[in-house]
């Protein structure tokens, strides 16, 4: 059951990959709530959609690999540029000439691609817990992904073979690291459930698509011109706050640090996140449009 049902929905088909999108509300500007790692699907925005749709046109879609979208086992559609082009295809299909992408975690790369390559389509960009190659990640995650695992503890579970052997256990571990805040049993249960809607095979295909390297990311940051807001938690155990800081600096954007927040604050601090997104979108509407 949902607090808010979509007003319209449909599919886009790009290069044989079918993606499901939903549209809520009709206020300007359009907010594009992007997918992220395909371990979850668009319902991870469930605490944003009902509020934001009262003020904005909100577009969500399931990325390749989960939800009601196809689950390609070829890495190609999961790459940065491919993801950027899929986002464009959704904007086209929903008639959104311009939009404010709101991205979580690794989707920061796809939002940056959009900002650099289709600046005329991007009014402003909100990044939440950006996970991208701007500086080092957390230490303690150096377990080899491609070697057969020799331990089953902690980040050793982040492993090609462990995913295939113990997919659910990996999901439970991973989301426990995403939600470092106390009293997160419900968001963890939700996320594990979404993770179970895809498979280790899909995550492995996705994993084979390369991430943008630091030089490329910095080029994209330099090429982008729109206002930027970066939201990052101090207790983000997936992507350290220093990356959010660097992203804000490289894009000339504003940084809002959420004290005590983990990697997915939209689930654990939804009101705060919603108000930040609304305030940001409102500031664009006031100054940025004819």
């Amino acid at each position: 059951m949902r607090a808010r049902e979509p007003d319209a929905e449909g599919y886009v088909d790009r290069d044989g990959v079918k993606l499901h999108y939903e549209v809520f509300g009709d206020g300007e500007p359009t907010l594009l709530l992007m997918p992220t790692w395909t371990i979850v699907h668009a319902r991870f925005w469930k605490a944003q959609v009902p509020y934001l749709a009262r003020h904005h046109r909100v577009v969500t879609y399931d990325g390749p690999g989960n939800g009601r979208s196809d689950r390609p086992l070829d890495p190609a559609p999961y790459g940065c540029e491919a993801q950027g082009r899929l986002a464009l295809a959704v904007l086209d299909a929903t008639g959104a000439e311009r939009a404010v992408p709101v991205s979580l975690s690794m989707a920061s790369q796809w939002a940056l691609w959009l900002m650099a390559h289709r600046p005329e389509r991007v009014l402003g960009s909100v990044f939440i817990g950006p996970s991208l190659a701007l500086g080092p990640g957390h230490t303690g995650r150096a377990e080899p992904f491609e070697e057969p695992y020799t331990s089953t503890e902690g980040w050793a579970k982040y492993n090609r073979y462990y995913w295939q052997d113990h997919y659910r256990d990996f999901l439970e571990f991973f989301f426990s690291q995403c939600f470092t805040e106390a009293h997160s049993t419900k968001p963890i249960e939700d996320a594990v459930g979404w993770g179970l809607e895809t498979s280790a095979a899909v995550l492995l295909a996705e994993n084979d698509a390369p991430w943008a390297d630091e030089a490329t990311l910095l080029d994209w940051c330099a090429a982008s011109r729109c206002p930027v807001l970066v939201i990052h938690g101090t207790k983000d155990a997936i992507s350290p706050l220093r990356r959010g800081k660097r992203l804000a600096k490289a894009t000339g954007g504003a940084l809002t640090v959420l004290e005590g927040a983990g990697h997915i604050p939209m689930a654990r601090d939804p009101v705060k996140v919603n108000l930040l997104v609304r305030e940001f979108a409102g500031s664009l509407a006031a100054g940025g449009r004819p």
Partner: protein
Amino acid sequence: MTAVKELSGARTVPEQTRARYPDATGYAERDGVRLFWERYGDGEPTLFLLPTWSIVHARFWKAQIPYLARHYRVLTFDGRGNGRSDRPAGAGAYTEREFAADALAVLDATATRRAVLVSLSCGALWATLLAADHPDRVTGSFYLCPAVGLAPPHPERAVHSFMEPLDTDDGWARYNQHYWLRDYRGFLEFFFGHCLTEPHSTKQHEDCVGWALGIAPGTLVDSQQGLLLCGLERFRESCARVRCPVLVVHGDEDAIRPHAQGAALAEATGGRLVTLAGSGHLPQARDPVRVNLLVREFVESLGGPAR
């Protein structure tokens, strides 16, 4: 308002911020025992959110106060033994008659002529006594998960003695005074685990354990022994004298007090029964919106002029 609450012994913990702060606070005093009350809002009628067993204090109504105070005058007080009320010693200080007399003293201290009673669990004992003995002061009684002996307890709770030393700490054997004095924290974890059977209750559990640390284990033993003094026949007789409208709300998964006890109370008082599917013993904490709307609906059903 001070942000720090004095607890029994040397412990102090900062109180959490509140969604709604009281408009007035004070103490009622009865036989040398001070009772701390709070008033929120000023609508009509007055809702009197009664204390329950002193294992928790008035903050257990925290999810009701902000909503109800937008419509009504809401009165709460910490039951003797916890919160900012005094901690008299001895089982005799914790009978249902003492709690009912405390409630009356708070009504008087706050110049409240009449009120709608809202009670949880053991609070049903004093709510019933108050409604039976002071019909002019009580315009309706709303019971949540009443802990009343009108129907048998859960069978697993009837196995072990509260008073006698036991040779096991398993399950409901923890509901034993010797165990409480030996491992109070262990008892709290067990007890609130059974109060909050719904998934995702970690926050409510943490709150309850925190409030329960506000009463010394020995005082809690006194309070439990005081409740054991409540006679069933006398309670039945009180039920029969209740004349005001009654609504009983009881979860069908209540692991502390069976739903049959709520149903029996509704029958004994001529009241209506609402069953919450899947709810445990503390629906005011786990289903606050539902409970708040039921309270509001009940209050509105009492009619304006009669208030």
